[in-house]
Structure formats: C-alpha cells, structure tokens
C-alpha cells in the first residue's frame, strides 16, 4: 500500500530518519560513503548534469596513460562499465540509466546521479545508529568502515597511493574519482539524535566490527555484499522492534 502525504507527515527524526520506501542497498551505501567522508554530513554536488555511460567511456579514452588499450575496443569498454562498474537503473531494458558506480570504493558517491540514487534517510539512520553506539564501539566501527571503503587513498592528504594492492574494478573507479574535486559537505547543520534503543546500536556496531575482521579473507565485492546484508538486517530489525 502506498503511503499518502498525510501518513508521511508523521516522520520524526528523533525516532527514525527513515522514509518508508523500498530501499536499494547499493544506493544506501553510496550515500553512507559521503557521510563517512564528511563525518556524518551528506555531500553536496556542484555538478548539475546527469552522469551517463558515454561520459565514463570518454573519460577512459581521454587518459591512455592510465587506461591503456581501451581505445581499440570501445564496445567492450562500454559493456564492462555498464555491467561491472555501475549500479544501473533498468539494466538490459529500455532507457537504462546510471544511479551511481558500484559501491566498491568510498569515492563512488561523487559520481552518483542524485535523482536515481536515493537512500530515503537510510544512510543517516545507519550512520547515526553507529555513531551513538556505547563504549566507543560506534567510533571504532565508523573508523573501520572508513578504512575498508577508502583503500588506496591517504585519508589525511586525500591523495592516491599506488603502493596499496587493490583489485581491477576498484582501481578503475579510483582513477575516475581521483579527478573529481567538486565535492563539499552539505553546509546545513547535522541532524543527530541518539537512537531510541541503544542496545540495537551497540549490537550493530559490534557486528560491523566483527564482520570486518574477515576483510582480508573474503573478496572485496563479496564483503561489500555481506555488509549490505548486515546493515539492511539491522535496519529492519530495529524498526520491527520500534513499531
């Protein structure tokens, strides 16, 4: 059943930031990256035009010093980008469009198309729940998520570090994001309230820390999938308990 505007008026951030919509966890992670980068504040894009696969193909072809040999097979490049590097809306159907690059690296949020990559408050819910976990578990879990999602980047200088071993897809996305500097935190104040149920926050932070212990034993893309499952499970559990 669709919720009418009257029902949505009841949204109260002190209880939950979530808008009651169907969520796509890839997009929730993309929005969460911006909050991890800007300490809880979402990012504001200066770009107004929509990012398309043509733009990504052109970007690859413009830099043969980083992307060698791609100019000889542009059709393969396009298929690779659309299938393995991007989170698409209507993939394989009429009018496919890019929502954002796949959430393999933290900086993918800079390439999102905000209209197609909505998280309906879920990233804020996840971040604030983790942030308020007790006994510094919240701080630890946020720091570990940052370290996992921003590999190959020195977080102090924001510079690319070529000595870090990362996989092929992450490398491609990282090279693209290395060139975008038009990213700034949203100037508005951060809306942050302690969760109604602290136990759930503690448990979520603890689970994130425990799962990330296995990051060197599981392929990166699989670990991202596990994190998506874990976060969505905790989101659902928390709201089932609450209402």
């Amino acid at each position, binding site marked *: 059943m669709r919720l009418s505007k009257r029902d949505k008026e009841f949204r109260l951030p002190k209880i939950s930031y979530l808008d009651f919509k169907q969520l796509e966890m890839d997009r929730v992670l993309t929005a969460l990256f911006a909050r991890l980068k800007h300490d809880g504040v979402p990012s504001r894009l200066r770009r107004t035009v929509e990012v398309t696969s043509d733009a990504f193909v052109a970007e690859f072809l413009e830099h043969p010093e980083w992307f060698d040999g791609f100019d000889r097979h542009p059709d*393969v490049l396009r*298929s690779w980008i659309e299938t*393995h590097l991007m989170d698409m809306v209507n993939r394989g159907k009429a009018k496919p469009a890019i929502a954002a690059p796949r959430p393999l690296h933290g900086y993918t949020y800079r390439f999102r198309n905000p209209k197609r990559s909505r998280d309906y408050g879920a990233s804020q819910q996840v971040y604030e729940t983790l942030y308020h976990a007790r006994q510094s578990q919240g701080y630890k879990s946020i720091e570990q998520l940052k370290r996992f999602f921003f590999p190959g980047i020195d977080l102090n200088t924001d510079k690319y570090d070529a000595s870090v071993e990362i996989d092929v897809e992450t490398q491609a996305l990282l090279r693209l994001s290395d060139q975008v500097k038009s990213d700034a935190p949203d100037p508005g104040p951060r809306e942050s309230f302690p969760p109604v149920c602290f136990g759930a926050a503690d448990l979520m932070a603890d689970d994130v820390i425990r799962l990330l212990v296995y990051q060197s034993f599981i392929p990166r893309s699989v670990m991202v999938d596990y994190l998506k499952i874990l976060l969505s499970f905790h989101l659902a559990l928390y709201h089932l308990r609450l209402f």
Partner: protein
Amino acid sequence: MLELTSGKVDPATVLPGMLRAINLGEGLTHPELVRGRLSLQVREAPGGTIRSYRTFPGDRFKLVVQDEAQRARFVEHMPTKLGLRYRGENDTETTLDVNLDVFEMFDRLNHGYRPTGEELQGYYLSLAIFKNILGSAPYQEVLLTPSGHDFFRVRRQDGGTLKLEHVGAEV
C-alpha cells in the same frame, strides 16, 4: 567415486574433468578455451552484456583422497570423500571437500546440467565458500567475454595503470 577412494584410479586423472565442471557451472560454454585453468565469475549481473572472470592456473590444483578415520587403528574404515586442494601463491592451502553429492553434481555439470535454485542453496554452497576463499586476494587481472568464445584481458600494472588487450579465442 568408489574406484577413486579405494585407490584403483589415480585422482589426478579425474582432476581436469572436475575443473571443467566448475568452469561450466560458472557459465563458460567452451571451457576448453581456458586451457585447463579454473575460471570463476567475478559477479553475476542480471541483464549484463559482458561476463568477467578470474582465472587460476590448473597446476596449482590437486585432488587427494581424504580419509578422516585414518587414525583409527582397530576399526575398519575407508575414505568417504575427496579433497580438491588449491595451493596459493604464498603457499596457503584451500580445500574443497568433494563428497558423493558434490562429485555427482560435477558429473552432471559435465553433461550439461544447470543446478536449480535449491541445489545452489544446498551443497553447491560449499563450492561458493571455496570460491570465496580462492578469490580473497586482490586480483590484478580479469578476463572479459561478451560471447563466451572471444576473450579480452584487463590487467592492473605497476603504478596503477589498467591495460586492456584482446586475447582471442584461446586464453
């Protein structure tokens, strides 16, 4: 299987067929093109137009007979399963337990069978865990194929450059 566990057949003779079965299960319609290597799909994307694979050299795999009761001196026993062992670059070992069910599944895959959703959730899951362990190291190379018989290689070189090359029908 009985001949293998009782030592009548050398497990090494079955190994290429087993790798072929896993390759077929990964959607490679012409597994002979990857020349005895094991290829694992990086990600299944519904509606995608190109498939991406990681490959592992076939000579790093070994099939052994596993007898868990071998320490029992006074009880009659025989091996119940095989182990598909992979030796990693830094000498780490990963083993997939191949019991009769999995062995049967490999045989069916070699004859063109595609596992159902239920089977994927069941004993095929042990293969998924094995794949995850194999794929845990960051990979520096993927094979792309739009059709299943024409391959392209994307390799990460020193300094973070990516190189795409056409490798044709045989990898």
